[in-house]
């Protein structure tokens, strides 16, 4: 006896159909992985502890459906081991397959019921009456015809004997759209619509060698590139048959692929003799085909009939469809997917030209697979959420466009003429790519973010919850928010008398990790700010997609607008823009925007209410009462009550400390009357077009920044620095002396950084900076009296672990956000990383660190 071969699509829902005892479970064990099979008996046991408890059937099938649904959604072949003899029970499973756009296959075990009865008798756990078996058998017989025809199975295999069952060989085959193994490289070509000459131009521009002989066209690429056509080969244009000839040779010779466009489909139906409306340029195609042979027309019909809705290439990294593809459709097949791939989605409404309004599915797309499509003519191809439309309306006098993959390069040729007048202007009513709306799902809940510098950074749900409020109520438009600065850890606590922080520990952090080349930068005491500056307002619109008129933005470390006053903001940004233009950084760096990491002074500009409510308030209360206390203690002492001497000394000292504390905060305050009162100290050139600079030596940054500062010494403030070799003791002493000098004259302190900015050793990511704050400055952090020996002792136990870990995670996320932005990642991807930083900032950590 020959083996019965059963062909299963790799992703399908397989129903085993047969009465109890017909051998379904044995069959399933033999041919499928245990996890691929869901049996109703098992589900019954799951919910009722008893495989045969018929009262649990309903619940058991709910569980079965649920598990099957999850597996299919995840793209896993699933086998249902249940009797499935009633049409009703099969129906819900077929619907499940449809909902998940997978094919359903039935394997029917149609054997003599007496065999089944005998088997059941032998089984100890079964006490079925024959009556039940026979009832099932009759239901099966009634089902057989329907199973063969109309129930919605792609294939039905009926096995009529035990021998036949035993002879089965199962083969799994790929779906037609599965070209995961083909890694290209590809040139994906947009809607051609009979524009043959432009197609030839484009292929030549792409370096294809085209020859023609009696077999037709021969097309090869010296680097073995392959072509993928997005469909709509025909209609409207002058040479549809030639286009067909060329594309057919490409496809049959294996040099390329073609997906099904709606015009191609309509032509096919016409050629098959269906009654279709001769509109939208079909008339032209039919007229051109008049001159072709009958044989050719037959070939065209077969070719078009063989076109499939979409292809998935390169391990799932790339998919091509005519009008688009939803993430959940990728690599699956169903009538709905076929329709979607041909027509896209519509809102159900029509516009003023009577054409359906297209629903921009790409706005909702969140997949990692790149989707390349056409169908809707647009002026310029533009990326949106990992998708790109490359139909540039050649037949309407636009361009014929190719996307080179994986290079993501766009190559176009212009149409020689307008071959067909569009009903509405190209680009009309096409979704405005700038008008991007984010979804709460892009940020909410627990998230795991993979970054270049650190794998799998977890954002806990409670942190997201806290950050949603901050982000939505206070932060600027997400389109501007391409970065947030990470928190920075202080140095390990110093053990030197009178010091809580000292440069030695900061230097040691790096030295211990064999990082010897450091830069020590003066730490400005103002407010951290990120400044994005564009060459002009058009750049803001094109690159940042903002809809309002702006040349840039300046925002705080929590993503809030730095300026509440529009006029100040505008003047401020113009000053930065002028400076950049003056030294012609635009050309020097080959960019038309810059993102700068800065400190803006004075501190009081942004922290006024904190200063008034806390710093000045405490100073005011303390000074008032300490004066009086000193006075009364002196009076008491003068009454010869000498015991108070000790207390008097203590409180006099306190008064001195309060004065030092007041001096400490006053240094960082001055009044802002105009824009001239601000000082801007940039210290990193974070990113510009095509480049993130977190891998560049700090001297590179400071060198450019110093040029900027020299243009306007009143507005810009340079960042003083010292280069340090940690192996050189003299050098270290010099830097420490410099730190003393900085901090004793009122400076906040310094930041010690690896000269090379970002360092990742085999063991760990290195802190990009360790701050070391001055003795006087720390009064406003740890309190006026923190230097009292007893206090200082208590304060020395600080726990830096969490702070340091946050600093690294936030640094990795910021780095990631910038990289995503410069690589034109979808907005939601950039936002995810930036949001992660804000979320981590809600982690409760000692605020004084």
């Amino acid at each position, binding site marked *: 006896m020959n083996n019965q071969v059963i062909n299963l699509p790799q992703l399908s829902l397989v129903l085993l159909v047969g009465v109890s005892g017909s051998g379904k479970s044995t069959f399933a064990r033999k041919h499928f992985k245990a996890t691929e099979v869901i049996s109703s008996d098992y589900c019954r046991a799951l919910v009722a502890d008893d495989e045969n408890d018929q009262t649990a059937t309903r619940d058991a099938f709910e569980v079965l459906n649920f598990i099957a649904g999850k597996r299919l959604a995840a793209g896993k072949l699933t086998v249902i081991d249940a009797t499935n003899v009633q049409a009703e029970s099969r129906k819900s499973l077929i619907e499940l397959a449809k909902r998940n756009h997978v094919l359903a296959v039935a394997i029917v075990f149609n054997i003599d019921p007496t065999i089944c009865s005998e088997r059941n008798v032998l089984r100890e756990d079964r006490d079925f009456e024959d009556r039940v078996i026979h009832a099932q058998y009759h239901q099966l017989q009634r089902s057989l015809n329907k199973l063969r025809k109309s129930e919605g199975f792609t294939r039905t295999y009926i096995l009529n004997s035990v021998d036949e069952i035993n002879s089965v060989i199962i083969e799994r085959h790929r779906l037609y759209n599965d070209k995961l193994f083909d890694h290209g490289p590809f040139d994906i070509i947009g809607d051609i619509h009979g524009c043959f000459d432009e197609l030839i131009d484009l292929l030549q521009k792409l370096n294809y060698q085209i020859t023609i002989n009696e077999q037709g066209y021969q097309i090869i690429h010296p680097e073995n590139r392959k072509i993928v056509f997005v469909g709509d080969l025909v209609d409207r244009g002058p040479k549809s048959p030639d286009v067909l000839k060329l594309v057919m040779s490409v496809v049959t010779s294996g040099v390329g692929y073609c997906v099904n466009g709606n015009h191609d489909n309509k032509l096919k139906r016409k050629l098959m003799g269906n009654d279709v409306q001769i509109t939208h340029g079909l008339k032209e195609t039919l007229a051109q085909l008049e001159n072709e042979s009958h044989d050719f027309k037959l070939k065209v019909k077969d070719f078009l009939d063989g076109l499939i809705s979409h292809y998935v290439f390169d391990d799932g990294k790339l998919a091509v469809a005519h009008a688009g593809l939803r993430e959940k459709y990728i690599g699956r097949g169903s009538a709905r997917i076929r329709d979607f791939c041909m027509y896209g989605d519509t809102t159900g409404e029509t516009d003023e030209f009577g054409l359906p309004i297209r629903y921009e599915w790409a706005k909702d797309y969140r997949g990692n697979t790149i989707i390349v499509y056409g169908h809707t003519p647009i002026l310029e191809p533009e990326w949106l959420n990992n998708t790109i439309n490359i139909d540039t309306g050649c037949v309407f006098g636009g361009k014929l466009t190719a996307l080179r993959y994986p290079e993501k390069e766009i190559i176009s040729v212009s149409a020689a003429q307008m071959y067909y007048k569009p009903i509405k202007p190209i680009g009309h009513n096409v979704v405005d790519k700038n*008008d991007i*709306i*984010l*979804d*709460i*799902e*892009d*940020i*909410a809940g627990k998230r795991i973010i993979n970054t270049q510098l650190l794998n799998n950074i977890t954002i806990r749900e409670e942190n997201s*919850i*806290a950050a*949603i*409020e901050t*982000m*939505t*109520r206070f932060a600027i*438009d997400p389109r501007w928010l391409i970065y947030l600065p990470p928190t920075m850890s202080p140095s390990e606590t110093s053990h030197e008398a009178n010091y809580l922080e000292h440069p030695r520990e900061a230097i040691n952090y790096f030295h211990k990790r064999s990082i010897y080349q450091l830069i020590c930068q003066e730490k400005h005491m103002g407010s951290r700010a990120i400044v994005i500056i564009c060459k002009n307002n058009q750049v803001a619109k094109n690159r940042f997609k903002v*809809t309002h008129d702006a040349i840039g933005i300046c925002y705080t470390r929590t993503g809030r*607008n730095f300026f509440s006053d529009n006029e100040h903001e505008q003047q401020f940004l113009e000053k930065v823009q002028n400076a950049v233009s003056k030294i012609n950084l635009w050309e020097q760096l080959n960019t038309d925007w810059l993102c700068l990491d800065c400190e803006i002074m004075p501190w009081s500009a942004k922290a006024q209410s904190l*200063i*008034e409510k*806390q*710093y*000045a*308030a*405490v*100073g*005011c*209360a*303390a000074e*008032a*009462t*300490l004066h*009086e*206390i000193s006075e*009364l*203690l002196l*009076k*008491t002492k003068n*009454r010869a*009550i000498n015991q*108070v001497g000790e*207390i008097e000394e203590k409180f006099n000292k306190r008064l001195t400390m309060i004065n030092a504390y*007041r001096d400490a905060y*006053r240094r960082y*305050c001055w*009044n802002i009357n105009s824009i001239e009162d601000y000082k801007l100290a940039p210290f990193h050139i974070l990113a510009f077009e095509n480049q993130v600079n977190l891998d560049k030596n700090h001297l590179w940054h400071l060198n450019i920044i110093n040029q900027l500062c020299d243009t306007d010494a009143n507005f810009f403030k340079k960042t003083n620095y010292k280069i340090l070799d940690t192996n050189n003791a003299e050098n270290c002493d010099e830097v420490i002396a410099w730190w003393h000098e900085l901090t004793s004259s009122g400076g906040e302190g310094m930041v010690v950084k690896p000269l090379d900015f970002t360092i990742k050793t085999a063991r760990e990511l290195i802190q990009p900076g360790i701050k070391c704050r001055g003795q006087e400055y720390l009064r*406003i*952090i*740890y*309190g*006026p*009296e*923190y230097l009292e020996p007893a*206090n200082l002792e*208590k*304060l020395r136990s600080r726990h830096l672990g969490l702070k340091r870990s946050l600093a690294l995670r936030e640094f990795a996320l910021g780095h990631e956000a910038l990289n995503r932005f410069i690589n034109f990642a979808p907005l939601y991807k950039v936002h995810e990383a930036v949001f992660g930083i804000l979320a981590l900032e809600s982690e*409760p950590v000692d*605020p*004084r660190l």
Partner: protein
Amino acid sequence: MLLTITTTNQPATDLGYLLHKHPDKLHTFELSFGNAHVFYPVANQDKCTAALLLDIDPISLVRKSKGNENFALQQYVNDRPYVASSFMSVALNRVFRSTLAGQCKDKPELVNQSMPLEAKISVIFCGVGEQILKNLFEPLGYTITIQQHILDEHFPEWGISNYFTLILKNNCTLRDLLTHLYVLIPVLDNEKHYYIDEAEIDKLMRMGQGWLESHPEKEFIIKRYLKFKDLADEALEQLAINDVNNLTNQYAHETVTEEALEQSTNLNEIRINTILSVLKEYRVKSIMDIGCGEGKLLKALASEKMVENIVGCDASPTALARAQKNLNLEQSDFLKQRISLIQTALTYRDKRLLGFDAATIIEVIEHLDQSRLDTFKRIIFEFYRPKLIIITTPNHEYNILFEKLVHGAFRHPDHRFEWTRQQFEQWSNLVADEFGYKVHFQGIGSQSEKFGSPTQMGVFIRNE
């Protein structure tokens, strides 16, 4: 922190007997939060001054309260060591316990003797303006001298602080003076360093005997002393004040709150009733209240049977937690089926909000930066697209009628903008046009001919 008590009753040094502290010595007491010292800068026949000085260590203060998150995250820079607060009351009770108990072993006749007394609180915090200082002490017979300190003499433009030096003069018993200080110092400071429980009610009742029940500011004193509303209500009941709900707490905040401004007109209630009647008129069955806050509208909707499905959304998890409590959601399965609360944001789409009949966006848009309104309107009008949308926002013109509001100011510090009627209507008409809605407007609250109503409402109906 420092308190001095002076008498000119002769012989003034009798103060030492009354306080049980010898004027020629330094007396030091160890308390849990630091040391208390009593000493006499002046002690002669005519005049005697006792000083109570608390030496509080701010660092151990913070360390000690580890685990209490609010305290732990507070910076070490705080005013606690310097200003008179509940620490002072604790110290008074410890150091002058006998005096407060009315005992004087050596000269018992002094206990009930009224005498000229002066108390000076070196620095006290008072966030609600100096009037309350007078209102608290003058009814008890004190003559009061107040000095308010400027914040920082180097920066005169920063203005005046909320710190005061207070001198109180009266002819009374020392015991009364200390009792009054014991209760009123923490009332003014409004920040207690220890947990307040029911035992505090007894303490307050005991200390307040004979003066608190007739004090015109008794409600204020009780509420501030006890801090927690439940306890305050109980205490007020003990004092037989029934009308608890009508308490006007005019000193509650430093700046007048939006609610307080609008309270006289009971605007919130009128607003909710107006919205309810619109919702009823259009017979909506499902409603999303966007920016539901603590759930005032949700609560009103809960008792409207016609509404089957209600969702309250807010970006603030704390607001949602409060709404959950206010609605008693945990107590009612019935309500839980009809009402759900979700955290979401006005500038992000949320699929959970698709398919509702109506959206109410009540006093919310003014809390958004104007630059985000474009995103907001698309999310509401383009994505959610309910049949009915109600938006209310303050009518800025009406602000001029709020006496307590500085001219030109917004009603709430978080308002990013407030619109005149013309501005709101212009924006609404454009939005309605753009997205296929019809809009009509209605004022909510008392109507002024010139300035309109305090709240303005736009009712948007989707074109079918």
